């Protein structure tokens, strides 16, 4: 008999717990809804631009501070030409693997995120630009004189990022005896380069220059300057977007005005990096045609 009372009491207690656990969460939901509504209250029309948050010199943002970098500067200029003030830009992080989804799902209006124009990607998204032509290159320690190009990497250790063929290409085409380590981000690669566990880091030259230009890395590394591929950085837009021509015009104007050069110099200062002249003035830099 006594046992029964205890179990009834336990049941009642647990029911009370469950109920009380319910009520605060429902008020929470209401509060969340309110703040959500407050956030969308903004003045004027906004444009959502996707950038990388983790590539110093190109697209970089710490916390909720202002993003910096070359991609960001070009994005601001283009947005300005399209009629958006700087305050109307909403910056959204678009890591490499998410870029197509973000455009297709309507999370962003444009992407400036070291986004190379390729046929495979063009099946799902539209491209304007290119606004920059990069090439794969190597980052080495400042005092290194041995590594002058990908062929010199036999027997050396090389770091790159998972999900990019950059490193594999070196192994396949230039130096079979290279040791590869793939990491989640270039920041890890740079720490290995500094500690001596790897001899070179490889990816697009402007990304390397951006890494080398950060205050904590200043003076430690140099870009070899012997680009061996061509990566045409385009502006990702939803497929069939009518903005393509306007973006191309804005990029042309930015180059003509000299703002392009300025942005580039400011973001790679102190690394001795200059963009590959032949790439950026040659046929690869020609803007895509917007009829599609």
């Amino acid at each position, binding site marked *: 008999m006594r046992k029964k009372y205890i179990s009834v009491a336990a049941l009642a207690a647990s029911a009370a717990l469950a109920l009380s656990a319910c009520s605060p969460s429902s008020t929470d939901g209401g509060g969340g809804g309110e703040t959500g509504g407050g956030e969308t209250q903004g003045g004027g029309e906004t444009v959502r631009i996707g950038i990388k948050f983790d590539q110093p010199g190109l697209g970089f943002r710490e916390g909720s501070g202002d993003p910096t970098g070359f991609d960001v500067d070009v994005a601001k200029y283009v947005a300005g030409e399209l009629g958006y003030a700087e305050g109307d830009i909403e910056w959204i992080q678009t890591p*490499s*693997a998410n*870029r*197509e989804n973000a455009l297709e799902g309507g999370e962003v209006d444009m992407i400036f995120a070291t986004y190379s124009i*390729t046929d*495979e*990607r063009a*099946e*799902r*998204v539209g491209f304007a630009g290119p606004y920059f032509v990069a090439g794969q290159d190597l980052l080495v320690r400042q005092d290194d004189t041995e590594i002058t190009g990908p062929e010199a990497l036999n027997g050396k*250790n090389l770091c790159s990022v*998972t*999900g*990019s*063929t950059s490193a594999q290409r070196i192994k396949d085409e230039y130096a079979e005896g290279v*040791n*590869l*380590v*793939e*990491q*989640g981000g270039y920041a*890890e690669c740079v*720490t*290995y380069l500094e*500690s*001596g*566990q790897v001899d070179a880091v490889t990816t697009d030259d402007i990304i390397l220059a951006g890494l080398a230009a950060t205050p904590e890395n200043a003076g430690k590394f140099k870009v070899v300057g012997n680009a061996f591929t061509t990566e045409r950085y385009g502006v990702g837009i939803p497929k069939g977007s009518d903005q393509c021509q306007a973006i191309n015009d804005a990029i042309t104007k930015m180059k003509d005005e000299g703002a392009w050069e300025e942005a580039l110099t400011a973001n790679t200062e102190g690394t001795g990096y200059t963009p590959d002249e032949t790439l950026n003035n040659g046929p690869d830099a020609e803007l895509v045609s917007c009829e599609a």
Partner: protein
Amino acid sequence: MNGFLELFAEYDIIGAFWMNIRLTILAAIGSFALGTVLAVFRISPVGSLRAIGTSYVNVVRNTPLTIIMVLGVLAVWGQLKITFSSDFELNFFVYAVIALSIYHAAFVCEAIRSGVNTVPQGQAEAARAIGLSFLPAARVVVLPQALRGAITPLGNTLIALTKNTTVAAAASVAEASGLMKTMIEFNPNLMVSIFLTIAIGFCIIVIPMGLLTTWLSDKLAVAR
């Protein structure tokens, strides 16, 4: 369908999954060995050993596997420069197996301990009564029964381990999830095929494990 063929032609998908399987097998052996030792620690009559076992389990079980993996590569390899092999592929494979073993040993330990709880007190007392001291009693009487009772939780741990081998991508091991990232980056047009290929691949590996676990736990259950 064309998408699938294209993927298999261009990327070494089978090789990547084979890497996951090799990681699973070696880490399963490693974590089972370490986990068994820890379980013996935790049921031993020596207080300090019990404390070691308990603190290991509580610390490691509450540390994300990614942290252990990254700590190994970023700190132990990158800064302390401890290298197992001059061949990077082997070196990072060893790091991944060690990290996976360290992490899953905590879960194996708890699985075995739950198996020990299924062994009636009388068994240990009877072992003691015929003159066996702690280790022989554990080895001959308690653990064999405990393992048979622990097959289901051990199987769950093995399945979790199989899926956790994808974290080895953080340690520069060329396995399936890293390959998926590469494929999505360069063939976003085939994204659905890529996702299905990897998902089905893991199902093919994991479902038989689940079936085998269920079958074994019925077959080997200690009839009392």
